[in-house]
């Protein structure tokens, strides 16, 4: 099969008037829903799924996929402007995006994330085009032991997302992991910490947790602080131009972010949220400006946004080539194909090449459309800040409730999001970081489940975890990372002491 012929055929499918219009509609709706805090890609795709039953399968998927990556694009907008993550995977974007808004530089932040998102998406698509079958086979080399090792690595790496007080950060990771244990245990069927609520059998809703902690708590905090209209700023083209220093510092985090995103996106069961946290943690460690993170560092935007969108595109690799959905959103999209009697799987590329290549082409077209759509719209988005908070906040709370309700059609989850909103408010007053809580919540159950699986399969032999090449290497790296962290702490202490001693000499 000739790659170029396939690409050409794919583009001619994707550029048909129908598909192009639905692609545009998809990315537009996606950006719109993504920008509304609370309504993430899963809620948006679930809401729009029934519409696509009446479309051709390729068109249906082109549109749904557009909604998916459009939502991840749009999600950064409210993270940056309002400190309210549009989707859970944009939570990290708040950390440095919102400080930039406070400094009157939201135009720069929005421009930077658009570029980073575009690059991340493009990188994911290039991989989808060129290495799909290889990556799919490679993903099969990851069994329970390997997943366990990688999740442990992720936990240790992400523990450093926290800023000043490591103990508080670790405490939040533990709280997150504890929340992750709620629900029926897979192996024994026993409901843990459900307090008699059937709604808790499937665990705490991730969206309710993320939106409560980051969204609702932010609104409560703003109201209690009575900030009125602080950050009105120019929306000229000039206000979007980053400083020369920022331009210089951007490419590497963006490249690394795309790599991290593609890695986690291609591994079924992981996905964008993990990728953004790891991308952020890595940049914080590597950057010479580590101390600026959380205060508006451009690296803190470029890496997670690039990772997010690379992960979204790469997530199509296992879905399309193995027929194994990597996330809940992907599962809904596979359902869209099944409705049309098309079984995603290893034969999809050969039996329905029009779908595979058409979809792949539409991804890139969609990303270009997003780029064209978003840069002129930055001015419009920034004007959002001019909406009086008395109107904006009640609306946002509504959207959050709608989004949370849609995902599991559960009124209980709406109560849960408000509960986590108050919990998040209290934690923030006590100066606890919330990002580590979220990462603990995502990774904790994965560590547990995969550890249990590995122990069952290898009949309780711990050594297997170290003997298997991939998991052994990853666990070794984790140990090195831990040692290095300890060493950094010791070195910093020593430096501080020397400074003090030096001061005494004067």
């Amino acid at each position, binding site marked *: 099969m000739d790659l170029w012929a396939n690409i050409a055929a794919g583009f001619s499918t994707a550029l048909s008037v129908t598909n192009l219009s639905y692609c545009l509609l998809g990315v537009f709706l996606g950006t719109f829903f993504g920008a509304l805090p609370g309504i993430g890609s899963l809620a948006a795709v679930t809401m729009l799924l029934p519409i696509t039953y009446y479309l051709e399968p390729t068109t249906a998927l082109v549109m749904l996929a557009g909604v998916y990556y459009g939502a991840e694009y749009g999600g950064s907008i409210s993270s940056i402007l309002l400190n309210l993550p549009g989707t859970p995977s944009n939570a990290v974007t708040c950390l440095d995006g919102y400080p930039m808004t406070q400094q009157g530089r939201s135009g720069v932040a929005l421009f930077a994330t658009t570029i980073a998102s575009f690059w991340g998406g493009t990188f994911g698509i290039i991989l989808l085009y060129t290495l799909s079958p290889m990556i799919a086979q490679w993903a099969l080399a990851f069994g329970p032991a390997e997943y366990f090792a990688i999740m442990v690595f992720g936990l240790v790496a992400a523990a450093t997302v926290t800023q000043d007080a490591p103990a508080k950060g670790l405490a939040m990771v533990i709280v997150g992991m504890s929340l992750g244990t709620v629900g029926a245990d897979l192996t*024994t069927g026993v409901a843990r910490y459900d307090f008699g609520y*059937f709604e808790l059998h499937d665990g705490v809703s991730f969206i309710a947790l993320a939106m409560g902690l980051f969204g609702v708590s932010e609104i409560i905090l703003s109201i209690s602080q009575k900030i009125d209209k602080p950050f009105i700023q120019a929306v000229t083209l000039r206000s979007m131009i980053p400083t020369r220093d920022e331009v210089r510092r951007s490419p590497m985090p963006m490249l690394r972010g795309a790599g991290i995103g593609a890695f986690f996106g291609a591994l*079924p069961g992981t996905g964008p949220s993990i990728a953004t946290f790891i991308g952020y943690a890595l940049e914080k460690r590597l950057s010479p400006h580590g101390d600026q993170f959380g205060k508006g560092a451009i690296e803190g935007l470029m890496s997670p946004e690039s990772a997010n969108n690379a992960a979204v595109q790469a997530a199509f690799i296992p879905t399309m080539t193995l*027929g194994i*959905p990597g996330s809940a959103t992907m599962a809904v999209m596979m*359902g869209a194909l099944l409705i049309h009697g098309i079984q995603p799987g290893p*034969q999809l590329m050969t039996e329905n090449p029009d779908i595979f290549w058409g979809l792949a082409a539409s991804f890139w077209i969609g990303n270009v459309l997003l780029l064209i759509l978003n840069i002129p719209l930055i001015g419009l988005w920034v004007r959002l800040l001019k909406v009086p908070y008395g109107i904006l906040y009640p609306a946002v709370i509504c959207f959050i409730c709608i989004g949370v309700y849609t995902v599991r059609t559960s009124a209980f989850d709406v109560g849960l999001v408000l509960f986590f909103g108050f919990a998040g408010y209290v934690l923030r007053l006590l100066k606890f970081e919330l990002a580590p809580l979220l990462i603990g919540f995502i990774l904790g159950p994965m560590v547990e489940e995969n550890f249990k699986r590995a122990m069952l399969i290898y*009949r309780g032999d711990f050594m297997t975890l170290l003997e298997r090449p991939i998991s052994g290497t990853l666990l070794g790296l984790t140990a090195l990372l831990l040692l290095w962290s300890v060493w950094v702490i010791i070195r910093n202490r020593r430096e501080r002491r020397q400074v003090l001693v030096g001061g005494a000499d004067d």
Partner: protein
Amino acid sequence: MNLRSISASVLASGLAAMAAGGALAQEFPSEPVTIVVPFAPGGSNDIVARQLGQQLSQMWDQPVVIDNRPGGGATIGSAYLAEQDPDGYSIMIASVTFTMNAAVRDDLPFNPREDFTPIALVGQVPLVVGARPDIPVEDVASFFEYIRGSDALSYGATGMGSIQHFAGELLNQAVGSQVQVVQYTGGGPAMTDVMGGFIEYSIGSMTQMMPQVEAGNIRPIALTSLERSPAAPDIPTLNESGLEGFEVIQWWAILGPDGMDEGVVESLNSSINEVLATEEFTNFLANDGGTPRPMSPQETADFMAANYDRWAEVAEQANIVAE
């Protein structure tokens, strides 16, 4: 009574029944009907319900609304339906798992046997024992020998008390093997670990398995239905390979709340059976190796009762209990 009068009375009662059915069928759906799907959109229950709903809607000239109420392993949607008016306008799709849950869990907020009216059976689809591609066996017999001969093997299932778990434990009982169950969050992840060679096999739906079988990623060992499937005539059944009577099938039924009017039940049953008889629906199920299985309301009730009894027995023998 002579033969003629018997046939005449049979004919007359038949006509009367048809007339009654006809009258009800005309009256019955005078407003939109809701089918509750106790799972998220995109799963097999959802897809079957949507196909059925679409065809019923055309037949009745009334909208059929699909209402996804996922959560708690179908508990939330089922509890919701049990509380609806038994007027026939709220019905639900239930699968074999519904009868298995009843055997495994003692914390259900409803009584599965008593709080529902069985209306019709929709169809059934066999499961397939799919093994890792490099499993060292030649045929079904040597597969039995292989799993009997080692105590270090594992198989994948989709959670405590899932159909895959029940099928796996039944197989262990029938073969006399001790293959360890390892639970996954879904059929896909379990299958991935089979493909990667981390576990020996999982017993999953043909929908999920067949594409991997065709690509050589999974070795099909046998089907769990009594007869071979037209979708894969080359794959033997466990029933014909020494495990006589071995049957674990996925099926879907339509239930209503308890206390439904018999006429409405009959009317719904005949409408559903009319859909099952269409070529469109048969082809739809055949895509996944499935077949329609029309039954009367009474037959459906008996079928479900038999399932409750059977799974309670298997759960006890294999110690499948949420503890």
